């Protein structure tokens, strides 16, 4: 019918693949929380999305970056236009570095050292990406309109809700089924809260939609000094590198993305994030609790074995991690298991 065709050409279509439901609710939790801001929050598959924006607006970052100021720890009631200092004290101080030790040799030689040499750039890249994301969201205005949103999956409106779809299209590491049809924005009319929640629960029960799946493997991730926990699905990563960058972004996002629409009428929506300078050199290591209840450094056993034994993750301060099982013991354990 011609009417339908006409209509369909007018129907807002975001041509991204359907969500694979691979995204954990709790990584999306980060997204949900920044809904009102529309920052490019992370999920486990977020990296390339951020890079889309990074290319867009490099010019504006440096200006924004220089405007960052310290936020007082514990400040709860900032003046309205300096906006939501939702940061609680702990987060202002921490900077996540996850120097996953890339090879056994390094571990053997430096059981006490927990340096983050390779990661510094990664972190600042992430920072920059966020600043860029924020500025591009506000200046580029390439958000919310389905036509525009089709390719730009990280958009002001789409960020919290459409991220699953968008990211599936921009990254290739999701195991979603191929997109059969284009997705219509806001259709079927299911609330994003529901979609996000279901994405987690469906992932956790393998057979819900009848598709074979290896099931999710959620482990809690805690960070020293941070009063909150996250959960990640280990099966959604293919290797340590992905886990590391996802965690980095998750905890960085949390610390950075603290703007939001305030209650004040007519106030500037573009209020700056108050950031403490996070490049204060604190080192962190990623550790995990294995099936025996021992805390080990992440990175020493093969990935497949790791996801098998890992029960919990913890981002510890480097100095606290001294004495944790280094490779020799880890390998011993894995040999015993093998």
């Amino acid at each position: 019918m011609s009417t339908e065709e006409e209509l369909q050409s007018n129907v807002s279509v975001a041509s991204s693949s359907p969500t694979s439901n691979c995204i954990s609710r709790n990584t999306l939790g980060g997204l949900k929380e920044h809904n009102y801001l529309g920052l490019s929050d992370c999920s486990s598959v977020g990296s390339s999305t951020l890079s889309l924006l990074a290319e867009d607006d490099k010019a504006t970052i440096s200006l924004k970056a220089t405007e960052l100021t310290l936020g007082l720890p514990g400040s709860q009631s900032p003046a309205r236009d300096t906006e939501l200092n939702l940061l609680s004290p702990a987060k202002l101080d921490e900077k996540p570095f996850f120097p996953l030790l890339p090879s056994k040799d390094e571990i053997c030689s430096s059981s006490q050292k927990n340096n983050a040499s390779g990661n510094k750039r990664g972190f600042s890249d992430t920072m920059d990406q966020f600043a860029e994301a924020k500025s591009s969201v506000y200046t580029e205005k390439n958000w919310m309109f389905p036509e525009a949103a089709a390719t730009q999956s990280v958009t002001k409106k789409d960020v919290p809700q459409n991220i699953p779809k968008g990211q599936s299209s921009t990254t290739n590491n999701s195991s979603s089924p191929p997109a059969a049809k284009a997705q219509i924005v806001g259709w079927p009319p299911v609330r994003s809260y529901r979609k996000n929640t279901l994405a987690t629960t469906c992932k956790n029960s393998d057979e819900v939609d009848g598709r074979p799946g290896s099931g999710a493997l959620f482990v809690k991730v805690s960070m020293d000094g941070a009063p909150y926990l996250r959960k990640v699905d280990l099966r959604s990563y293919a290797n340590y590198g992905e886990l590391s960058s996802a965690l980095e972004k998750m905890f960085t996002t949390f610390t950075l993305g603290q703007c939001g629409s305030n209650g004040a009428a007519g106030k500037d929506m573009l209020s700056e994030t108050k950031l403490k300078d996070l490049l204060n050199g604190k080192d962190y290591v990623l550790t995990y609790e294995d099936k025996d209840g021992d805390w080990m450094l992440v990175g020493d056993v093969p990935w497949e074995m790791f996801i098998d034994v890992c029960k919990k993750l913890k981002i510890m301060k480097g100095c606290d991690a001294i004495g944790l099982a280094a490779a020799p013991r880890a390998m011993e354990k894995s040999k015993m298991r093998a």
Partner: protein
Amino acid sequence: MGLRLPSKVLEHILSFIDSNEDRNSVSLVCKSWFETERKTRKRVFVGNCYAVSPAAVAKRFPEMRSLTLKGKPHFADYNLVPDGWGGYAWPWIEAMAAKCPSLEEIRLKRMVVTDECLEKIAASFKDFEVLVLTSCEGFSTDGIAAIAATCRNLRVLELRECIVEDLGGDWLSYFPETSTSLVSLDFSCLDSEVKISDLERLVSRSPNLKSLKLNPAVTLDGLVSLLRRAPQLTELGTGSFAFQLKPEAFSKLSEAFSNCKQLQSLSGLWDVLPEYLPALYSVCPGLTSLNLSYATVRMPDLVELLRRCSKLQKLWVMDLIEDKGLEAVASYCKELRELRVFPSAPDLDEANIPLTEQGLVVVSKGCRKLESVLYFCVQFTNAALLTIARKRPNLKCFRLCVIEPFAPDYKTNEPLDKGFKAIAEGCKDLRRLSVSGLLSDKAFKYIGKHAKKVRMLSIAFAGDSDLMLHHLLSGCESLKKLEIRDCPFGDTALLEHAAKLETMRSLWMSSCFVSFGACKILSKKMPRLNVEVIDEHPPETRPESSPVERIYIYRTVAGPRMDTPEFVWTIHKNPEIGVSHLAIK
């Protein structure tokens, strides 16, 4: 001439009138009745926070004890309203703090609430007792902590499907040890784990606690311990039902549930290991409300639960229930009044759940008291709709979402006009209607003509022409909220029935063919409507005749709003000006 009722007498009479609709009528009788009424109104409801200014409300109702506000348009739930659109609670909180310090209850829906708002509430209202936030966003657990810590008489704290910045589970520990007033606590939308010992102590010292809704992070062991301390609960939202339990712990779980003899409402579950469901069997016979819409329970297990729920009045499930499960509902749940069936995999086209129109038909036949339906289904038939209408003329709310846009009756290939005609004609008490599937203008002729009591109407991917809107706006006597997306009508009907819009709360139109020019004319014609265009570019950069992507029109006595973001343009009353300068960033 005529008797004058002394105001004391009138006040006494009015103390028996709670319904705001009635009170609104009372206030229109004469000035003295208006005065008496406004001074005695305790519960104030504002359906659109932009329809009136906070100051005006505070001034009119000085004895206000309870305020309920709604912010964003309903379609914001489905990503059709960009972030930053508005709906800020702050101006209201600020105004009430100044003028109505005795405020005790605040209920907000679809509004942006910041930590600052929550802190202000905590600081300003000494007798504050009830905070219910539904589908709100913009705050963190720090704001919740402020409420918990400061409101000494807090009875109700409910966060329903809010988007909360979760900074951890500490907020719970801010309830002072002296607080014993809690009646209802709902933190099911939060992610972080709370300290179970804090929660146990809080529950232990809250003898009036009747409703407790936990988040998924609460383990089954935690649940057992909480139920032991609060066997008087009438409403329970569990944590995840998938934490591994030792065998002896299962019997403790069963026992804990069986001791909750007053439990009427159950929700939560989330991830479910089906072997734990039998622990719930003992409470099923007493349940009147069961919300499994977030629970991954398969049909056979659902049937086992439902066949024990003979008193069930409200059931929310996912389509995992399948037609077969709904047959069980029809057989066993004879008291059912409300059924909602949500899609388990809304984004996947390949989902192959055996849930068809038959499921709803069988429930309509079996459950005589059924009056409210929300049903997601891939496709439907006229025959099914006819049966439903015939069997259940007492329907008050009928929301059918045929997931496939433009899907005709899959057996006859006709539009679903006849079916919805039957619904509109047959269900004379219908208050809320959502239509879907292939629909021609005719369907709306029937709806306009027969749906006399429908107050809220939602339409998507339907109709052929302007006639559709014409039928609706010239009929539907009780229409208050109309939301339409992706329908091919244009300017004519809208302008012709402009006056109707002032009798309604709001009209949302997106992806239709309403032009910018028409918006201007409408705005000029109707001084007490705000005509807001949502567009990333100023509407004037497009030709007058070009369609506007999203329009939100609502009646207001507060004039154009002052807090529009850069993508919302209020059409100025003077068409020469185009869009209001107030709206420009």
